[in-house]
């Protein structure tokens, strides 16, 4: 059996079952695509499918990675934030991420997009959402700032806590 499989492995690069499983996936996707083609709008649907990947991998990811690089600053060897110093990075990063996540998910309401269909469906307007998002975001940053102050003060009050436990990096 192995003697039969070896050439296939060499040609294809994996066990034939690997190919079989993948063909199943492509068959299913192809069948869905054939069914979908009954809808006159199918090219736009396909475009959105590809667009979703591009928007995430080549727009959203680079944007947030870049923003994170800006927050974490250059990779200078920071003076190790010892017990007296609390790093500010996460106190900016976390509220920013929370606010960004809400904008990403709920931007239609926040920027009042699709207001006609919204009103037709609900009988209401999207008026409160922008203010709510701003208040929530301000709340995240305020909470983060308060926590930063509390942590900094605590660190100053207890400058030496009997030496921090030092766990060696040997844990692998």
């Amino acid at each position: 059996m192995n003697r039969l499989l070896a050439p296939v492995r060499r040609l294809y690069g994996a066990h034939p079952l690997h190919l079989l499983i993948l063909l199943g996936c492509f068959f299913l996707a192809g069948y869905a695509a054939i069914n979908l083609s009954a809808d006159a709008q199918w090219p736009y649907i396909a475009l959105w499918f590809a667009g979703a990947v591009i928007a995430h991998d080549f727009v959203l990811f680079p944007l947030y990675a870049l923003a994170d690089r800006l927050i974490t600053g250059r990779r200078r060897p920071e003076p190790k934030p010892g017990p007296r110093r609390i790093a500010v990075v996460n106190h900016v990063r976390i509220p920013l991420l929370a606010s960004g996540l809400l904008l990403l998910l709920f931007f239609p309401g926040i920027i009042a997009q699709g207001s006609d269909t919204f009103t037709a469906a609900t009988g209401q307007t999207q008026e409160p959402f922008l203010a709510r998002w701003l208040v929530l975001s301000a709340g995240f940053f305020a909470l983060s700032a308060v926590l930063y102050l509390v942590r900094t003060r605590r660190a100053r009050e207890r400058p030496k806590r009997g030496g921090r436990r030092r766990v060696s990096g040997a844990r692998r």
Partner: protein
Amino acid sequence: MPEDHEPEYGFPARLWRALARHRPGGPFSARAWRSPLRGPWLTSVFGSVLLVGLPVVIITGLLSYAAYSPQFGQAFPADVGWLRLPLFSWPAGPSWLYRLTQGLHVGLGLVLIPVVLAKLWSVVPKLFTWPPARSAAQALERLSLLLLVGGILFEIATGVLNIQYDYLFGFSFYTAHYYGAWVFTGAFAVHVALKLPRMVHALRSRSLRAELRTRRADTTPEPSEPDGLAPSAPTAPTVSRRGALALVGGGSALVFVLTAGQTIGGVARETALLVPRGREPGEGPNGFQINRTARAAAITPTATGSGWALRLTGGDRPRSFDRPALAALPQHTAELPIACVEGWSTTQTWTGVRLLDLARLAGVPEPGSAHVTSLERAGAFAQAFLQDNQIRHPDALLALRVNGADLSLDHGYPARVIVPALPGVHNTKWVAAIDFRAAR
């Protein structure tokens, strides 16, 4: 899996090797990826959460299709070939069934978005791996990953827009979301089949308990392997691994708090701050959430005024009942939810005539189905078919009143259908006629 070994090239090896020699710079350079937290263990933690959560979202989505009664051709898209669950009659009870399944579909789908984003972040160096493939096997597998990632992002994008009534995409949400789900499901199943052993192996490589006790200063990178997820030249950590997990979990918790209220209702609704159904639109017995206003449906006061009469057909001769005549029939009261495909729901106390009583009055004592039509002319839900169990359920009503008051125009005055466990849009409003068909 072949990728576990030292680089091994499939046919044509010369081509793959030549490709490997021409590594572009930038993100294709192995040193471009520096996060000390990326690694198979972290990816596997996110992966295992999705492995549990996504099947629930997939199954509840398929159940929603079944709940629309595809046997009448009224589920969207209508003709899906083999791409559906086996046909069965959607149950008419418990009354909260669709509220639960669709609440889970939308609610869990939303809560998993931060996990999906984190999972994609953790594997993004793989997108820029070089050579792009070493064999036909790898090339095909990467193609399936395009379907996987495209599928989940497409489902998230269309779903998130739809629950906010933002039809930016212009195509039919149902059709796109349904077929997109099948493409994703196939790719997801393949991904699980191919990666499960590696995920289990990676999860065993570190102790979750130990990670949850490890502070930032003591956080060490996962061991780096060629073509692996862990970076070859990691920077110093700015956050611990437990911090990263808490961040993602916190994102999910935030989404939960801000959305679950539109399904749970009551006091919780007030925390659903950024979604359409977090507000009570008005006061009084009719002050609950509206799905499609009378104005949008072009329902005029003339059509619903004293000239309105319900037309019942299916028996020997058609019968007509104006509103006083309907109100004079035996009335039944039931507490039932309206649960919509967008995941929100609201439970109210409805009063009206049992559908089964109307079937008898129409001359069809053993109804097999009913076709309900609205005064509304246009609109995808100006009519709906009901199954026999949905007509015969003792709480299935043609409601005239809600919470002790007449229905408002926006809630379907003069009369609307309300049936336990039925998707919201099939509870036809402004009913003009019901055609009962006898069971065969």
